[in-house]
């Protein structure tokens, strides 16, 4: 049990707790907060994976923008209060949870265990540096990149169209 593993376990535990919180909290705002926490910790998990650029991007995009949007909408629509009538029928919950565990069990048993032998990272030290990502993104992946930009544009137009009362 090295310090790295210790660090990872702490981060992972927090992230897992936050993830459970997202589902468990009755009040959407708390779910949102725990999701924010989850994403924030996830960024640090990315750092431990050596992907600094993506970690920061994670904070910037998810924590900084997307989740703020979520909170904004929740408050705008007054969904903040824990919805009283949101009682889900017990059996459905039970089935869902059971299936969730089933999914976890199956994949964990059949996919993750066989991979447990990989303990040494093989990538270069700075494979997550902005330079590396930039070079790859704008040389090999420039076409998907452009297409993504178009997708985002479409998203902007669509959301404006949806959210505006009168265009």
């Amino acid at each position, binding site marked *: 049990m090295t310090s790295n593993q210790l660090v990872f376990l702490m981060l992972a535990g927090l992230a897992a707790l936050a993830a459970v919180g997202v589902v468990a909290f009755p009040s959407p705002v708390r779910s949102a907060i725990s999701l924010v926490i989850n994403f924030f910790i996830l960024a640090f998990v990315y750092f431990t994976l050596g992907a600094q650029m993506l970690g920061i991007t994670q904070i910037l995009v998810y924590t900084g923008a997307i989740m703020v949007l979520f909170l904004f*909408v929740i408050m705008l629509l007054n969904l903040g209060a824990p919805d009283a009538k949101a009682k889900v029928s017990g059996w459905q919950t039970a089935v869902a949870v059971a299936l969730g565990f089933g999914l976890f069990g199956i994949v964990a048993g059949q996919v993750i265990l066989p991979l447990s032998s990989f303990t040494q990272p093989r990538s270069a030290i700075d494979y997550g540096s902005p330079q590396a990502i930039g070079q790859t993104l704008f040389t090999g992946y420039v076409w998907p990149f452009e297409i993504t930009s178009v997708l985002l544009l479409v998203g902007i137009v669509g959301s404006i169209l949806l*959210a505006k009362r009168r265009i």
Partner: protein
Amino acid sequence: MQDVPLSWYLGLGLFMFSTGVVGVVIRRNPVVVFMCIELMLNAVNLTFLAFARYMPAVLDAGESARSAWMAGQMMVIFVMAVAAAEVAVGLGIIMAIYRLRNEIDLDEMSALRG
């Protein structure tokens, strides 16, 4: 970060993913459902990155190896972009629905019942 096994990262990702799935099924608030979807997306991102870092597929270094690390990160970037677009549109839809019928509850929106 030498000695954290790959499987731990995968395990975290998998756990987040299944949690998100369960949330999608059991929550009635569309915003929360959205959040759960985001959770799943991030789990996938984590898995991508973990594989990109440990790369069990590419056992030989060199060109293919580098492209493999990069491929994982590229995927994450694109997933983020798509998630952003999806959230923008999805929240817009939710607001439109709310404006239409002053409440948001997935179980009330069963107009498509056969």
